[in-house]
């Protein structure tokens, strides 16, 4: 499948890529103009990574310049959630200009292909696509790039962690045992590549019945900190998000909840404040 934007790598990047192919493991090079990178990951699919990444990006954009990269080439959710539809433009240096909405620069495979067309690629093509989404996009100048990771511990995760320096990882999970198992695997993987886990976000923590207001813990009520104690994911829990139909509706209509929902706004502001402590916003890039 060809990229519709039709841009070229600079000659220096061509040499870089061929040297990487010859030697096996790539050297990490920072993205031009990007000071910090945070990965939002999970291991398990469907726990709310994209929802969290979207709302977190907007919350953090109040304090610094933020970009949001959708690294899920097979199931790109960010265009829908951030209400970004336009096909990106290319500049005179053949770099893709990321569209901006809600004060956040966005890029996704979903902006480069027909929404109904599947991306049917083996791992090598995925690696190349990820490299293009990282280096073929004019991200800088940017204080923080948030990367919405796909589920799993495979090609995309390896490509990104081997390609660019990463400030840290925020892991998203639900209390469900199968989700936790994958979250711990994810934490293990990031530990193996020496990436710090900045915290956990527990999504779908509980559901308050809109009719009788009783709280239901659909996946059990044991605190997440107890469930991950002693594992690779034993890190501070940054937030507990409830299951709220309004959050689902907001995602589906491309209006992230952090904008109009005061409770969700407060939760993500609090997470943003804690993550800001890990960011280096002063140094030149």
């Amino acid at each position: 499948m060809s990229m519709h934007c039709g841009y070229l790598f600079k000659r220096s990047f061509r040499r870089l890529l061929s040297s990487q192919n010859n030697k096996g493991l790539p050297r990490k090079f920072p993205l031009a103009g990007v000071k910090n990178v945070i990965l939002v990951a999970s291991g398990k699919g469907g726990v709310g990574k994209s929802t969290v990444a979207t709302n977190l990006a907007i919350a953090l954009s109040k304090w610094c310049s933020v970009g949001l990269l959708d690294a899920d080439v097979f199931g790109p959710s960010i265009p829908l959630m951030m209400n970004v539809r336009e096909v990106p433009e290319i500049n005179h240096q053949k770099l893709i200009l990321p569209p901006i909405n809600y004060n956040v620069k966005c890029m996704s495979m979903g902006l480069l292909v027909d929404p109904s067309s599947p991306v049917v690629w083996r791992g090598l093509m995925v690696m190349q696509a990820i490299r293009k989404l990282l280096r073929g996009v004019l991200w800088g100048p940017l204080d923080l790039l948030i990367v919405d990771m796909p589920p799993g511990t495979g090609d995309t995760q390896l490509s990104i962690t081997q390609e660019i320096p990463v400030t840290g990882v925020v892991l998203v999970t639900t209390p469900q045992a199968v989700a936790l198992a994958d979250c711990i695997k994810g934490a293990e993987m990031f530990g193996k590549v020496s990436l710090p886990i900045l915290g956990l976000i527990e999504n779908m923590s509980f559901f308050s019945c809109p009719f009788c207001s009783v709280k239901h813990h659909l996946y059990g009520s044991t605190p997440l900190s107890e469930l991950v104690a002693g594992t690779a994911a034993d890190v501070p829990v940054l937030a507990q998000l409830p299951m709220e139909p309004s959050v689902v509706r907001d995602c589906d209509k491309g209006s992230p909840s952090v904008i109009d929902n005061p409770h969700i706004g407060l939760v993500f502001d609090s997470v943003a404040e804690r993550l800001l402590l890990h960011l280096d916003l002063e140094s030149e890039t």
Partner: protein
Amino acid sequence: KQWYQRRVRAGKGGVGKSTTVAVLAGTLASSGLSVGVLDADLCGPSLSRMIGLKGSIHSCEQGWLPLSASVGKGRISAVSLSFLVENQDEAVIWRGPKKTAMIKQFLSDVCWGALDYLLIDTPPGTSDEHMTIMEAIPNCSVVLVTSPQAVAAADVLRQVTFCKKTNANVLGIIETMSGFVCPNCSDCGLLFGKGGGKRLAEYCNIEFLGYVPIDPNLSRLLDRGELFKNFQSSASIQSYTEITKKLIKP
């Protein structure tokens, strides 16, 4: 191969593919059938936990022997990467070629025996695992799973396109997480909306197999691997039973 091969896929993560495979397998086996279950999600093999099978795979002269258990009048035999790794917390960090090789081994080197159905649980996406299975079993049928959310349906639409382009036989779409009946007041709340899967089926001209509500009891049983000990106790099992009848009709 004599048995019917069904692949459960979604494109979107976390919509209930593994849950669907586990419950479908249990429903089929309960009625006296011999069902094989293959977990092709190598990085996140949830299925073995859900069906409560643990242990190591042994080999015989002809190849690997799946782990199996009696369920009702029938039997379930399962193969998963979790039966091959010692540390269940350890991440499987594999690139495509290694995953392809593993899937091929699961398909060619396992002594399934006589099966009525082989159910294959796939990871989200359309990558190495899916292409390997399609190439190895071109005549397998596909069951698609989605939650009602638009972001999920959008991913599953891509799956539908993929299936149509590869002439895969799509049996239908299941909409999971469709409504939650409050145990306290019995009113039904729509956590993720309702109807997204049905609308997708109508849009793609594919059979809509049915709705499955959110069922905390089922989640608990799957988390503990006790599904088959208390198989009939969950409300959502009835929904899956109706879906199974549609899937096995001649």
